[in-house]
């Protein structure tokens, strides 16, 4: 019997769901009964909601009929606040989803989350989740949050343009400088970047220079309070970023371009490269499909001698915890067991790649390439391997405390526009950081 493409994928998904449910039914130990709830905190269109019902809810419920999961989408800009308010009021969902470690930390400090150590041990989650990423949920020796997303900064580039000009992705600062100059000589913008629809995009670039110029070792020391943010290595890093902006590497319209527009400029070859997150992969693919040119992805270059290449900064834009007031924490624990399973990852990576890039140790390029584009599979697996080998850095949105991060985002615009000096910027950042550190607001740090 011949099936249409849509029917084939539906059939494959159905088989996948049944297999996942069967696997779960065989593996799951006896649970406490009772329904469990998850308020999904990220934006989610109707098609994505259908995917979550099919890949997440249906297989879990089939395997745990006495612990049915209800998924309630609380997207939009205040979904996070709804969950926070409900949890601190002693209510809220059993499974608490947050937009990152700094939000989680506030709930940990106020004793609203359950330590997950028993479930991590019971389900061997420490073997299934990459250790440095798992560490982002650890506070005072106990783990309270599991990372749901695993993201990093990479260098997207227009492969068609590169091939035509005989260019290769840069691996060092010298190569990057030469490439950017060659691009500007041809009236091509080196970096296609913008912040019109997401002002926090500023911190992607700060993350790049801090990790690839100052280096993860220095960031680690600064986040531990061992060296200040005013250290010369950070001054040089921010000066480099300022120099890029003022030399026109970001183009003329940084404050006007939206994510879609910057992807399209890259895809059309009007810009050559784009430092951006793995979360933008779908966006890039869509733009290149529109232009008919070929997308390339590489690790970001080392910007200073001694900073290893490749280095990937770890980012966790979403975490999962269990509410201390949950009536069925064991059911929530079983859900976490399913969430971090190969069975679920197989389903979700096919239906919704990018946003559901779980930090699993079992990620395999060949296996993943069956579900997603080979480029995405190669990017994700090289990232996972680098992290497993210890070549990782720290994204600002995962490891910085909230007020320091907010200043980092907005203050860098003043540096770019020449309103304040790099020294003043880092001095204010250090003051803000020192206060938050004293208040215990620095999120857990993945040790080196």
């Amino acid at each position, binding site marked *: 019997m011949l099936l249409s493409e849509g029917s084939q994928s539906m059939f494959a998904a159905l088989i996948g769901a049944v297999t996942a449910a069967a696997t779960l039914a065989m593996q799951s130990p006896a649970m406490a009964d009772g329904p469990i709830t998850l308020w999904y905190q990220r934006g989610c269109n109707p098609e994505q909601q259908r995917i979550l019902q099919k890949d997440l809810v249906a297989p879990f419920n089939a395997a745990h009929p006495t612990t049915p999961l209800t998924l309630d989408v609380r997207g939009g800009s205040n979904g996070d*606040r709804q969950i*926070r308010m409900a949890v*601190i009021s002693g209510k809220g969902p059993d499974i608490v989803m947050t937009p990152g470690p700094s939000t989680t930390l*506030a*709930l940990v*400090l*106020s004793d*609203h989350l359950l330590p997950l150590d028993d479930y991590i041990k019971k389900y061997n989650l420490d073997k299934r989740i990459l250790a440095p990423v798992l560490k982002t949920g650890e506070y005072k020796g106990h783990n309270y949050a599991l990372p749901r997303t695993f993201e990093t900064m990479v260098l997207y580039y227009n492969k068609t343009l590169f091939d035509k000009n005989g260019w290769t992705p840069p691996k060092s600062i010298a190569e990057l400088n030469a490439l950017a100059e060659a691009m500007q000589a041809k009236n091509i913008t080196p970096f296609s970047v913008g*912040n*019109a629809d997401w*002002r926090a995009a500023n911190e992607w670039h700060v993350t790049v220079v801090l990790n690839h110029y100052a280096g993860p070792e220095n960031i680690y020391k600064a986040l531990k309070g061992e060296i200040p943010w005013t250290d010369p290595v950070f001054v040089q890093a921010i000066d480099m970023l300022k120099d890029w902006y003022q030399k026109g590497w970001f183009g*003329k*319209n*940084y*404050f*006007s*371009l*939206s994510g879609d*527009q910057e992807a399209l*400029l890259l895809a059309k070859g009007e810009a050559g490269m784009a430092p951006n997150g793995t979360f933008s992969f779908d966006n890039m693919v869509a733009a290149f499909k529109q232009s008919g040119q070929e997308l390339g992805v590489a690790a970001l270059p080392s910007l200073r001698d001694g900073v290893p290449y490749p280095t990937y900064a770890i980012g966790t834009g979403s975490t999962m915890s269990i509410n201390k007031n949950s009536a069925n924490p064991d059911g929530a624990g079983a859900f976490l067991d399913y969430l971090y399973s190969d069975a679920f990852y197989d389903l979700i990576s096919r239906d919704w790649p990018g946003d559901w890039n779980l930090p699993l140790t079992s990620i395999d390029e060949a296996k993943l390439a069956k579900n997603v584009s080979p480029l995405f599979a190669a990017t994700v697996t090289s990232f996972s391997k680098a992290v497993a080998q210890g070549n990782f850095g720290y994204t600002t949105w995962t490891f910085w405390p*909230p*007020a320091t*991060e*907010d200043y980092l985002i*907005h203050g860098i*615009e*003043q540096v*770019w*526009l020449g*309103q304040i000096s790099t020294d003043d910027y880092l001095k204010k950042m250090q003051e803000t950081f020192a206060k938050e550190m004293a208040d215990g*607001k620095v999120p857990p740090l993945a040790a080196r």
Partner: protein
Amino acid sequence: MPFLLPALVINVVIILIPALLTIAMAFVEWDGVSIPTFVGFDNFRTIFADPVFFSALLNNIKWTLIFLTVPIAIGLVAGSLLLVVRRGRTFFQIVYFLPVIIATVVIARVWQGMIYNPESGLVGWLKLYGFVLSDPLALPPTALYAVASVDLWHWWGFLAVIFFAALRQVDMAQIDAAMLDGANFLQLMRYVLLPAIRPTITLMMIMTVIWSFLVFDFVYVLTQGGPAYSSEVLSTLSYRYAFYNYTIGPAAAVALVISFFGLIATVFYVRIQQREGV
């Protein structure tokens, strides 16, 4: 008196209690989750030590001055023209009023993407014909005015309709007499129409002061206060303190400053009301 009770209950529950809580929060250190700690005037010291607070306050003052003049002037001219020119009056009222009923986010996105944007907007289109313009939202000296222009476009029609409604209450005999005496349009405005609708203009100006210190939506959607804080206003600063920095105390302190300006305008209005009542 009992018929006032429902309104009183609603006011106490949804206005008075949150207002008192906001006042209380301005004197505590709180991240929105943990137990609040009393810190006296520390939150006010924090905001007064933040240079962004003063630039935001200045932006609110500039915003107030713009909205006290430009839309009120346009509204008065358009409203009086509607009174004088009777043909097509209903059509023009609808056209003037239309932007008022369009959602803020829709208007902001249309201006941002279809007018100001250098790739997809009018600015980008003009570039194709040799008129090189910059996106005013992207430049610190113009960002606030670019946002204000969008709000002005959406707002002046409302004032035009309000002023027209007030002008229609003016005795037509006075207008006819002035015209028979040879008064031109400016003289008619100066000596007949403006004095007749002065209470309406005063009310609108006082409300403008209050609304100008509450402005949030257009700024938040179009620039989020940037670039480099150039379009930051007190309400977006308060929002950033509360929901990005998780520092509720300084956010509440900024909210109290906003309320202070609203209070001044309200006292001013009540005084005028009392004087005119006498």
